[in-house]
């Protein structure tokens, strides 16, 4: 037995509270971040990822107190993304208690951010999030920024290789085609990126069932799988997901 595949619940945080989107009806309060993170920890989550979606600049500082509070109570790796623009943002989040920092749009706009952050804090804490959408013209996938709104003209696999060269220690790969559809990961995309890079790849976007998680690992070759809605709405627990994966021959931490 060796390294376990990881299951990572993702929590959206708005103004210091966990929120969840309900069928385009807007955001519903889903609780205190410490309580939600602890619940996932109790279920056996291998890590927790917080995505700060706070729109109002007045409330953006609240993420620091969230991370401070969670990291004093929950002792598994915590990744934080959303609004990371400069090296000082990385430092501040690490100091608050984050273990890994995820950067997305700002890494595309200024790839030096990856290099400078990795040089200063080590590759192990730098996650580059890549939002990719299938490109029918090339047959590949194109990188998008700003939450999937802006096309960059960059090929996702090439960008993944490039961010590793710059010092990323992990890639969080989201299929924009699948995100929110509950139709499963884009397995071709996941596999193409995972086989192209030396660092771990976290598959994200589209999970609707436990079978999707298994496919992401067994077919997509992901090192970890990230999901939000299947856990948030109580359909499945992390524990039941792990039991399902273990039955299919995936090594998990039970």
């Amino acid at each position: 037995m060796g390294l376990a595949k990881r299951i990572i619940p993702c929590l959206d945080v708005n103004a210091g509270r966990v929120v969840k989107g309900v069928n385009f009806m807007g955001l519903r309060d889903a609780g205190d971040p410490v309580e939600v993170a602890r619940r996932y920890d109790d279920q056996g989550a291998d890590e927790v990822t917080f995505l700060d979606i706070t729109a109002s600049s007045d409330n953006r500082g609240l993420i620091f107190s969230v991370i401070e509070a969670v990291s004093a109570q929950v002792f598994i790796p915590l990744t934080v993304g959303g609004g990371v623009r400069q090296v000082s943002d990385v430092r501040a989040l690490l100091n608050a208690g984050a273990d890994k920092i995820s950067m997305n749009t700002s890494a595309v706009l200024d790839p030096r951010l990856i290099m400078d952050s990795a040089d200063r804090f080590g590759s192990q804490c730098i996650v580059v999030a890549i939002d990719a959408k299938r490109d029918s013209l090339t047959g590949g996938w194109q990188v998008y920024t700003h939450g999937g709104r802006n096309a960059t003209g960059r090929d996702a696999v090439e960008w993944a290789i490039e961010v590793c060269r710059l010092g990323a220690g992990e890639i969080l790969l989201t299929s924009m085609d699948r995100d929110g559809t509950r139709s499963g990961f884009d397995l071709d995309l996941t596999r193409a990126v995972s086989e192209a890079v030396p660092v771990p790849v976290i598959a994200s976007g589209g999970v609707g069932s436990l079978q999707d998680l298994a496919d992401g690992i067994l077919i997509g070759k992901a090192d970890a799988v990230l999901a939000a809605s299947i856990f948030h709405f109580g359909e499945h627990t992390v524990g039941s997901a792990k039991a399902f994966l273990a039955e299919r021959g995936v090594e998990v931490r039970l």
Partner: protein
Amino acid sequence: MSHVVVVDYGMGNLRSVAKALEYVADGHTIEVSDVPERLAAADKVVFPGQGAMRDCMREIDARGLREAVVHAARNKPFLGLCIGLQLLFDHSEEGDTAGLGILSGQVKKFPAEGMVDAIGSRLKVPHMGWNEVHPHQPHPLWEGIEDGTRFYFVHSYYVQPDHSKVIAAHSAYPFEFACAASQDALFAVQFHPEKSDRAGLKLLSNFLTWAP
């Protein structure tokens, strides 16, 4: 009750380590310090680390901590974490860096190519995630921790001690490597107990109550 100093040399996740120790402190006191005299005054020392070994060694020297760290590692209960394990050895391939030489052996890089797991997936470097730890002999720090318990790892280099008697545990990725070393009152692990959930907290708690 003991007073524990977590060595601050400007690298990595000290806060996480201090928070986890505080969580299990139960009357022991935890201090984060970069002052050599504070290390000398401590009952026990925790030596964390993250990032590149060359940077760690440079920061230790820049802060004048080398002597105090070596003295603590030889004379009082001492817990090294991650790079805090690697720094104890003679030399690392990472940046061709000399270590503190408290334990004899080398720090080597996982080969980037040709490592595959049981389902044929490429094994990535860094070795990141939860892996099984297999203690070699009973030790107070393993108390209450079963053989094969998973701990959280993040590293691209591993230690290769010259003497097998200092190996306190091994893991496999995909080959077996030493993931913990011990000698007298010194104990050091490659994984991150401060991020290893209940098993990690148990190990930290064992360190706090350890009376070698």
